[in-house]
């Protein structure tokens, strides 16, 4: 920078209003550049985190993998369910749940979106860019909230499309394979699709909270695998009441009830189950927020 540049800096300090904001592409284009009289705000952090998340390679992979998991598992489950249904006893047929069959992909999608949430912060610790991020924005609470909001902005539509795509693909395969199927207008269908999308968004935020507290990518990935897949799968083999309790209340298991149509009396109903998951995520995100604010970077 020449002496002239510094002079122009001084000039800018005096007359910030003379610098009109150039219109930019993107949804946040109305944010003015912070002049000397301005200040960096939460909206600026949102823009920054949006740029970070969308330029993280994993983001595209996760979104695609999630959508594919949703529609793919629905199709596979739907087509095999046709044959299974034909061979079922009358009692089993009563428990057949076309809704949940088409939304089996949610089980995998909750993991992929949780990994995205985790990576949104562990990638910063792994690469040490957290240092430049926090030097630019020393208000840490703002960084966490901005990351959570931007993550939600990606996870929510992805989750909704995943459940909707899974539902539509799954029901059409069920129909053509001769098994019972439901339409979007049927009771519980929209609840499962929209609630399932919200559940997937919660899973992403759960991943973010875990990543903030754990920091290491490997340990976060392992933890999220265990939380979303391994514990629910092993729960029935836990000893005695622990098995019942875990199957019923373990947050990802409880929250997953939101996509079911058949009421199992041993499990929580859809919205109570969803509330358990939501409460768990609120608690974890709060803990992560407090940790992040106090801990050395």
């Amino acid at each position, binding site marked *: 920078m020449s002496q002239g540049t510094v002079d122009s800096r001084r000039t800018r300090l005096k007359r910030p209003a003379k610098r009109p904001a150039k219109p930019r592409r993107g949804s946040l284009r109305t944010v003015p550049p912070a002049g000397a009289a301005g200040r960096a705000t939460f909206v600026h952090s949102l*823009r920054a985190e949006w740029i970070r998340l969308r330029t993280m390679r994993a983001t595209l992979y996760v979104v695609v993998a999630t959508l594919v998991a949703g529609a793919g598992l629905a199709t596979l489950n739907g087509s095999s369910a046709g044959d299974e249904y034909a061979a079922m006893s009358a009692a089993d047929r009563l428990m057949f749940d076309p809704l949940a069959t088409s939304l089996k992909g949610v089980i995998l999608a909750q993991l992929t979106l949780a990994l995205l949430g985790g990576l949104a912060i562990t990638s910063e610790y792994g690469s040490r860019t957290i240092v430049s991020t926090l030097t630019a924005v*020393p208000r840490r609470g703002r960084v966490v909230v901005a990351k959570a909001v931007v993550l939600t902005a990606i996870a929510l539509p992805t989750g909704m499309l995943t459940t909707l795509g899974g539902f539509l693909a799954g029901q059409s395969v069920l129909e053509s394979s001769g098994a019972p199927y439901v339409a979007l207008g049927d009771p519980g269908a929209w609840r499962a699709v929209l609630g399932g999308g919200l559940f997937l968004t919660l899973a992403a935020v759960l991943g973010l909270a875990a990543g903030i507290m754990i920091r290491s990518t490997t340990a976060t990935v392992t933890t999220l695998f265990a939380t979303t897949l391994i514990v629910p799968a092993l729960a029935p083999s836990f000893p005695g009441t622990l098995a019942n309790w875990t199957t019923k209340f373990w947050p990802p298991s409880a929250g997953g009830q939101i996509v079911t149509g058949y009421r199992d009396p041993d499990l929580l109903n859809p919205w109570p189950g969803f509330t358990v998951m939501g409460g768990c995520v609120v608690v974890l995100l709060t803990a992560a927020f407090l940790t992040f604010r106090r801990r050395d970077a």
Partner: protein
Amino acid sequence: MIEVHGLTKRYGEVLAVNDLNFSVRPGEVTGFLGPNGAGKSTTMRMILGLDAPTSGTATVGGRPVAEHPVPLKAVGALLDASAVLSSRSAYHHLLALAASNGLPRSRVDTVLEEVGLSNVARRAAGTYSLGMRQRLGIAGALLGDPPVLVLDEPLNGLDPEGIVWIRRLMRRMAAEGRAVMMSSHLMSEVELTVDRLVVVGRGRLIADTGMAEFIASVASQEVVVRTPQAVPFAGRLAAVGAAVRTTAGDGNDDGTGLVVTGLEAARIGALAAATGVELHELAPRQTSLEEAFMELTRDSVEYTTEAEAA
């Protein structure tokens, strides 16, 4: 302007930074010097608000960094040159930083130009050499055109061209009236660049001095004199106020020489001529800055050990 008052950081048993007081003034490059593990990085991290001090304060421009409305306009920092996400381009790395402070997109292009990365800015940063990453780190520090720069070991691992580039940049930043703080564990890295020296060892302040004063203090050095009339000449030298000892104990010297301090070689020669003393050797012994620095920090280590034992 950076001001550090009673700054202390304890990691369990380790006092990484121990009651530091110093300031980094505008218009100067301040070299923050100390052996590895002296607490330089920890101090810089506390200045930048990344680590919380155990006690004491560090302010930039009169307040803690977190209280500046636009932090990147208050201080720019390079802490860890390799800190980039390898799949993200330099452009987007900088764009996110600029966006977080509401800086215009044009600042990103300006700093990329300034550090010479414009042509490769769209490439994933993982493909960059260490030198290019260092330049990217500097670009991040310059984004807000800040009056204060904090650079941790900015010359580490650079090729000679890169070293010259960063040295010139720091000199120019100081000439523009900015306060520049650079750390190093090698005197040779800073001696050509800095105006002031803040030397630390084991977390403690050892010296806070102008570079010129430091050179002068080192230059008040010894002269080795050899003469067949050593004993009477030593008496004459002492009589005019010089301190004299023999070279006995100086490495593998035979111990027949005199080591004179407090008198220049020319005056010693004149005195010898005036008193008819025959000189066989009259040799100023220059201590290098690196040796002086090592001497300084070694003393501090010993001092710290004694203090702990006491």
